């Protein structure tokens, strides 16, 4: 049981892409008129948030596939891998937002709709991972976590739209028309780098989960065989 051969070169490619995109964005974008150098936090905070959203959409898609199209273990494991990476990205997004918020808003945390819905998203997927850790039966674990995964995925559009639906101090989504190209270019490049990181992490986590599952099945078979011998 080993990881696919393409993962190692892809991992190195991802690392180099990430470092290059970070350097490009930080070195080429001028300080913002209002925020100064603080604007540069955007190159890690926003891609991390977009990656978290993508991760939970992947969780929702594969969870639905698992529940309604064939109950394939691979679908469950892909959903799990994306959920774990998405949880890391959400925690990172909140922490980075907090670091941005302290000098910009004057507080590390406030119960703003965007921040609160994001925290709820994090709690749902922390619960998803806890549920998987504490459920022994394979089939039940997959079924229950798929239901939680779909529920968590439904929260993504709420988080995304929270800045438009409610009064919030968090800024609305930036677009190429509302942002200078010097910033937009760096943001898109770093989003591409985070996307590569996401693919890499999910692929590695998925293959590890497959290995864990194979070992679990083998252990169960051995236990059953030993039981049969004793009977």
């Amino acid at each position: 049981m080993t990881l696919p051969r393409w993962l190692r070169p892809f991992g190195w490619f991802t690392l180099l892409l990430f470092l290059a995109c970070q350097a490009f964005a930080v070195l080429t974008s001028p300080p913002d008129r209002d925020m100064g150098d603080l604007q540069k936090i955007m190159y890690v905070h926003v891609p991390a948030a977009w990656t978290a959203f993508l991760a939970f959409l992947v969780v929702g898609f594969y969870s639905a596939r698992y529940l309604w199209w064939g109950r394939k273990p691979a679908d469950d494991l892909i959903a799990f891998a994306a959920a774990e990476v998405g949880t890391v990205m959400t925690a990172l997004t909140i922490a980075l937002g907090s670091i941005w918020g302290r000098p910009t808003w004057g507080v590390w945390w406030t119960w703003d709709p965007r921040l609160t819905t994001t925290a709820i998203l994090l709690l749902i997927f922390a619960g998803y991972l806890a549920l998987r850790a504490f459920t022994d039966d394979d089939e039940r674990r997959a079924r229950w976590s798929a239901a939680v995964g779909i529920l968590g995925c439904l929260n993504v559009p709420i988080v995304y739209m929270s800045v438009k639906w409610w009064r919030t101090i968090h800024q609305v989504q930036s677009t190429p028309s509302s942002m200078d190209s010097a910033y937009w270019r760096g943001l898109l490049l770093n989003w591409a780098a985070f996307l590569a990181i996401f693919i890499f992490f999910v692929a590695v986590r998925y293959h590890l989960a497959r290995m864990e599952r194979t070992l679990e099945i083998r252990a169960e078979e051995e236990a059953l065989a030993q039981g049969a011998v004793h009977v």
Partner: protein
Amino acid sequence: MSNYGFVVLAFGLTYLVLGLYAVRLFKRRRMLARLPKEQGS
């Protein structure tokens, strides 16, 4: 802390979190790769 300090903190935290997660995955891979050999398969 100056604005520059907050920027360094944010980037440092990003690299730390992503790096630690990558290390965790590869430690797990190493552990799992070792298991079947110990079981003689």
